């Protein structure tokens, strides 16, 4: 496929890897923000091409993974109502709540439908005027234009049986939370290319200056990631801390202006809880007062519900880059994609699920009998 295959050329990857070895003089820890990048790194073995003194740690950029138990429980409560059609991206259905997940609610008779786009949920609302249709709006800035447009269209068409359970999160406050943690080891960041395709990257410049960290906007294919790592290490070795853009084919400094305008029309910045991390100020999006009629938490009277996280899994440390998946005692034994304890084992972009899928034989031979054993 054009714009994909050419960025997976193994020979070019080897040239980048050689160049990275040549410029690396000491150990550096770099975090890729986005779960899509984590998946590509583990799938293509990008980390295995790097010198041993370069450590990649995996960031919080998986919206499925960071959605707190509180919102999962609210989703379960709404989805179980007989008058509701609950629409969601497929990944969310297996994220564990306190005692069950959305898939269990579906099995027990809840009308839960997996959709590809929020516009599909709006279509279901138009076609079923006697039912309440709720869309579980999870996502980072990349997904915000789609959800903003859906609310805007519902408002313009006066569709009253449609609402959003909003779980939107933002990348820059998460980077700041990681950098201000005393446990932080991260010296440079690969910023999430598609988040920046929407938002641009000027909001990262004050962060790079304040914490003196290089931030390189990076794409998702192996060559993109290797070039992003090279550019980050070059800055670190030269003592620079700037925002650079590797992903120029999709990202401009100012981002997508019409998309940003509609996001700002529909949403406002709010504090949000992150799974395993806790509340981060000004780290999410919520509906503006003008669109409050589309807020499912208010419509179903559950906005004030507070539910605490369970301490079963270490996904909070994994999402902050403090621990790696195989350092968890439950990894691959009591926690698997079939029976996940935490969301990082559910989503294909979760670090635990990626390690389980691509690394489990090597990392945990003792847990898994080989075929034929």
């Amino acid at each position: 496929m054009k714009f994909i295959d050419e960025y997976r050329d193994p020979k070019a990857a080897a040239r980048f890897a050689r160049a990275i070895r040549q410029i690396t003089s000491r150990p550096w820890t770099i975090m890729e923000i986005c779960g899509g990048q984590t998946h590509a790194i583990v799938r293509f073995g990008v980390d295995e091409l790097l010198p041993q003194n370069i450590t990649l740690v995996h960031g919080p950029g998986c919206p499925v993974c960071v959605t707190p138990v509180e919102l999962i429980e609210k989703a379960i409560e709404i989805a179980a109502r007989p008058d509701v059609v609950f629409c969601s991206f497929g990944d969310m259905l297996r994220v564990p709540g306190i005692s069950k997940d959305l898939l269990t609610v579906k099995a027990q008779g809840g009308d839960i439908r997996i959709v590809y786009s929020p516009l599909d949920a709006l279509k279901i609302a138009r076609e079923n005027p006697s039912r309440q249709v709720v869309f579980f709006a999870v996502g980072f800035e990349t997904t915000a234009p789609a959800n903003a447009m859906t609310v805007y269209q519902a408002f313009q068409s006066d569709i009253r049986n449609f609402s959003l359970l909003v779980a939107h999160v933002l990348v820059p406050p998460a980077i700041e939370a990681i950098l201000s943690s005393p446990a932080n080891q991260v010296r440079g960041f690969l910023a999430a290319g598609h988040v920046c395709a929407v938002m641009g990257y000027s909001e990262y410049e004050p962060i790079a200056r304040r914490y003196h960290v290089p931030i390189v906007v990076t794409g998702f294919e192996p060559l993109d990631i290797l070039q992003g790592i090279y550019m980050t290490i070059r800055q670190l070795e030269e003592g620079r801390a700037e925002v650079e853009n590797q992903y120029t084919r999709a990202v401009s400094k100012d981002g997508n202006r019409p998309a940003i305008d509609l996001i700002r029309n529909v949403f406002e910045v709010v504090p949000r809880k992150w799974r395993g991390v806790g509340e981060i100020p000004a780290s999410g999006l919520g509906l503006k007062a003008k669109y409050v009629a589309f807020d499912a938490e208010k419509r179903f009277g559950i906005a004030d519900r507070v539910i605490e996280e369970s301490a079963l899994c270490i996904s909070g440390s994994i999402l902050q880059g403090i621990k790696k998946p195989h350092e968890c005692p439950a990894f691959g034994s009591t926690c698997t994609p079939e029976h996940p304890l935490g969301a990082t084992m559910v989503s294909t972009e979760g670090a635990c699920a990626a390690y389980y899928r691509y690394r489990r034989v090597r990392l945990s031979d003792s847990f898994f009998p080989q075929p034929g054993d």
Partner: protein
Amino acid sequence: MCLAVPGKIVSIEGEDSILRSGRVDFSGIVKQVNLAYVPEAKIGDYVLVHVGFAINIIDEEEAQKVFEYLREMDDLAELEGSEAV
């Protein structure tokens, strides 16, 4: 979740800027995509599509930059290598 896939616009319909949409070809799989956020997109352009929305047009010239960077890096390494000899 933030997966966005490149595809080629094969048709465009809808005058309304909000409802502007088109058919986008992902190597044989064709899907209807909202084009409201890429008002300047034309048939034949490649767009990045996320949950049914084109979030940007892919810049064909910039798409070559990774390979130009690689060539410059190789030249530099060669230069440094020959200086070392």
